[in-house]
């Protein structure tokens, strides 16, 4: 008897050697989830070496997708289903599978040699160590070869589509349609109809195999479409969203985009993406180093571009002095820091929130600037837009913090209507304005005017030396330095008048307030939702505006018995909060393993805090 079990949400992880095509398998599975109307979020897990040794744990490449009929905020903690193409991926990923979860393996690959390479002493398929899981042992390699035998392709070639057999199995288990995958093959292998055919055949063979074998216990799963708002959707990674948000700001401001950047993991995608869009007038300059990346952007900003530099932590360190120059010259500049594990080279492919202090203070002198942090892969679009808007309208550098997790993760993105985004109005100086002075300030925002070379009647000089208030001439006058330092600080402080109030998710008062920021949003939200469902009086204040803080921050904190600040660092945002609000007691929860928080560990920690007196 066949039975169909309804599930609210499912986490699936595909894992193989780096040559096994796991990213593609994951992407095709995501496409099918999109077609089925599910909400989803994904996360790739690549080895940090490009060509890590085949068959070893270090060379394993993974792709996780969390999909469901409810809103999905993270790529999920533990997997319900693991597809392991070889022994090494099984070894590496077993700890990420839910107890009792389903594991699908290619038994053909569990040879003695492969087991040794993966570091197994006994065969996990026979030694009983997987007894607590629903283990599906499928001779995927053999079945793949058989499936396409009639086409007469060579074996090596056919075996490359082993991943499509696995995909077919998953399509059966989750009732997915072949259509989007078929379309992909037809497009990708246009020139080679035989390859299109063999991929389609192998995928269907996987599907049919799953339909006939007893191992599945004849159980399949149904995940209903999510109740997403009506509209047009696409899948987007954080880096793509960042690049597009910047392009949107360029269009809305009428200022051409200039990106000066140097390749660095995990920020390089933004440079690569913007390099594609010359038709939108975007100029992406791959500089000789991080410093030239930011300095060319400052030059571009002076010359009237919407200027951006993108980097990660080590690159931000190298850019420090130049960012100070942008503070001093009061030019608009967006600095995107896709944070990774530090210090030094640290964990280049892992995620962390440990550059906040560097963003706040990592410059010589008093050098304040605006700091924003995106909280999901898709809202990187809006915060990149906001960063550019604030930079131009307030004439200041802005650091946008994202992280490796947001950057590489993807989620469903409702395509915004450009009409709904605010127009950006940079304070451009008017040609031949007799009143023009380089450092004359707007009385409200305290910003100066942007006088672009080429404009008649506005020739002026700026630079890194302290400027005289108004005229902008070089000045070493003691009182002038005091005034100018205070202006620069106050200009950034007044941005608080232009940012939205901090929102609170849940009741405005209660026993515990979770205060988080940046890329941990999804995990916090799922944890808070779980606690609220248990009836706990817990709310969430998740911050995107870090410097300055929203004006109502203090009001929010007042109404809770306890406040906890979970961060993927050793306590950086909490330091800022303690500085601003010494009257409150902030508990900490710090994880620094290069991994995101798990919802379960958050729930446990919050419950523990609720129980303490």
């Amino acid at each position, binding site marked *: 008897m066949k039975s169909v079990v309804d599930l609210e949400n499912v986490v699936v992880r595909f894992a193989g050697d780096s040559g096994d095509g796991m990213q593609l398998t994951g992407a095709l599975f995501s*496409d099918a989830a999109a077609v089925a109307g599910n909400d989803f979020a994904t996360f790739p897990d690549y080895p940090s070496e490009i060509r890590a040794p085949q068959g070893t744990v270090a060379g394993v490449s993974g792709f996780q997708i969390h999909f469901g009929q409810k809103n999905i905020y993270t790529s999920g903690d533990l997997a319900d289903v693991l597809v392991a193409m070889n022994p090494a991926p099984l070894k590496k990923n077993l700890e990420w599978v839910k107890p009792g979860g389903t594991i699908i393996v290619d038994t053909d690959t569990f040879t003695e040699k492969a087991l040794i390479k993966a570091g197994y002493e006994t065969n996990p398929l026979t030694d009983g160590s997987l007894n607590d899981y629903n283990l599906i042992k499928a001779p995927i390699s053999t079945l793949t070869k058989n499936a396409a035998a009639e086409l007469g392709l060579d074996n090596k070639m056919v075996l490359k589509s082993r991943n499509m057999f696995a995909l077919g199995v998953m399509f059966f288990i989750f009732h997915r349609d072949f259509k989007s995958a078929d379309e992909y093959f037809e497009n990708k292998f246009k020139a080679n109809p035989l390859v299109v055919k063999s991929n389609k055949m192998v995928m269907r063979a996987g599907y049919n195999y799953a339909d006939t074998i007893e191992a599945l216990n004849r159980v399949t799963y149904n995940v209903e479409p999510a109740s997403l708002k009506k509209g047009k959707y696409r899948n987007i990674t954080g880096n793509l969203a960042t690049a597009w948000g910047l392009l949107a700001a360029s269009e809305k401001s009428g200022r051409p985009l200039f990106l000066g950047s140097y390749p660095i993991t995990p920020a390089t995608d933004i440079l690569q993406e913007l390099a594609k869009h010359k038709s939108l007038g975007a*100029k992406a300059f791959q500089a000789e180093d991080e410093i*030239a990346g930011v300095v060319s952007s400052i*030059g*571009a900003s*002076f010359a009237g571009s919407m200027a951006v530099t993108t980097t990660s932590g080590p690159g931000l360190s190298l850019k420090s002095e*130049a960012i100070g120059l942008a503070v001093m010259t009061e030019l608009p500049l967006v600095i995107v820091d896709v944070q990774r594990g530090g210090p030094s080279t640290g964990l280049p492919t892992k995620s962390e929130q440990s550059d906040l202090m560097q963003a706040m203070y990592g410059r010589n002198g008093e050098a304040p600037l605006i700091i924003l942090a995106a909280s999901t892969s898709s809202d990187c679009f809006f915060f990149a837009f906001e960063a550019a808007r604030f930079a131009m309208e307030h004439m200041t550098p802005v650091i946008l913090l994202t992280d490796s997790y947001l950057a590489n993760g993807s989620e469903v993105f409702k395509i915004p209507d450009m009409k709904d985004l605010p127009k950006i109005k940079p304070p451009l100086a008017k040609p031949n304005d007799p009143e023009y002075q380089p450092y004359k300030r707007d009385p409200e925002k305290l910003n100066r005017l942007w006088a672009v070379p080429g404009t008649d009647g506005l*020739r002026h000089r700026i630079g890194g030396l302290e400027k005289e208030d108004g005229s902008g001439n070089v000045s070493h006058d003691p009182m002038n330095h005091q005034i100018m330092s205070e202006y620069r600080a106050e200009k950034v402080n007044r941005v608080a008048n232009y940012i939205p109030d901090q929102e609170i998710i849940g009741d405005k008062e209660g026993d515990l307030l979770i205060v988080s920021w940046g890329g941990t949003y999804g995990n916090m939200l799922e944890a808070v939702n779980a606690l609220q469902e248990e009836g706990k009086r817990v709310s969430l204040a998740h911050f995107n505006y870090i410097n300055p803080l929203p004006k109502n921050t203090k009001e929010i904190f007042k109404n809770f018995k306890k406040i906890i600040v979970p961060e993927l660092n050793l306590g950086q945002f909490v330091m800022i909060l303690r500085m601003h609000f010494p009257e409150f007691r902030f508990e900490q929860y710090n994880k620094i393993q290069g991994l995101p928080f798990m919802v379960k560990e958050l729930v446990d920690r919050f419950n523990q805090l609720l129980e303490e007196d």
Partner: protein
Amino acid sequence: MANEVYVKELELTKADFVSDQMVKWCPGCGDHAILASFLKALPQLGHKKEDIVVVSGIGCSSRFPYYVKTYGFHGIHGRAAALASGIKITNPKLNVWMVTGDGDSLAIGGNHFIHVLRRNIDINIMLFNNRIYGLTKGQYSPTTPLGQVTKTSPQGTIEHPFNPGELAIGAQGTFFARVTDTNPKLMTEIIVEASKHKGTSLIEFLQNCVIFNNKTFQDITSREAKFENQIYLKAGESMIFGKESDKGIILDGTKLKVVKLGEGVTEKNLLIHNPHESDPGIHIMLAKMAPPEFPAAIGVIRSVDNLSYDEQVEAIIEHEKEVSPIHTVTDLLNSGKTWDI
């Protein structure tokens, strides 16, 4: 396009470019003469005064933008080339000048210096070479002669100096000229030449730092030495020098050699200067000539045509606008795989 002169009859004079700021270089510093020659050259460039931008790094020479009434940007140490690159790429119509020194561009900014030359971005670099750190008061620089005693080399330097011309041409520079700060007329001429060149132009000014490295170029610039130890290279002319015009340069095997005219050697045997030769071999050898064995080469040593970075960027943008289906961010957002709910 980049060098197109789009404002024809501009009645500009030097006075249009003199700034109201007090010039603070030491009296007797070579920078004064360079500034004067530059101000004289500006009205001759054929650019609207608002289209001229002067940027600099850090050092004595880098105060230069404050003393010129154009758009100006005094940057940070070593980074002027990156600053100038961003300005020029943003707006190729601008006539961009970068003022720098031997410390600024050959030490801390060495990386940007070689890469701007390699890319051939259409900016003009004025390198004031005084073979010393002036602003920090007398430490050796990357061009200080081997063995010279300075504050940081009390026993004499043990570093092999750069020759800026050799370095620049080695980095695929398309324009290199050298001039002494004692020759105002030639300075102005060369500044105008450099401005016309499409691609990165580098002018090395042999500049005297009267305070910390006085007379460092005396063997080239002094009244007594200048005829015997300078050779002014002009395109299409024989390489002749000497007070009596009695000496010349020939190619002897694979090396340059100084010969005396007469005694079987005539002007016909001498090398003829061709700054437009794309092969850099002879140009590097010319740039390296130095007393006492050779006269130092003055004038435009290399000036060759090659595509500039900024013009190529514009060309790609124009082409992409024609062929790409994406003309707005809305097009972009809706491109690729999307679905409706």
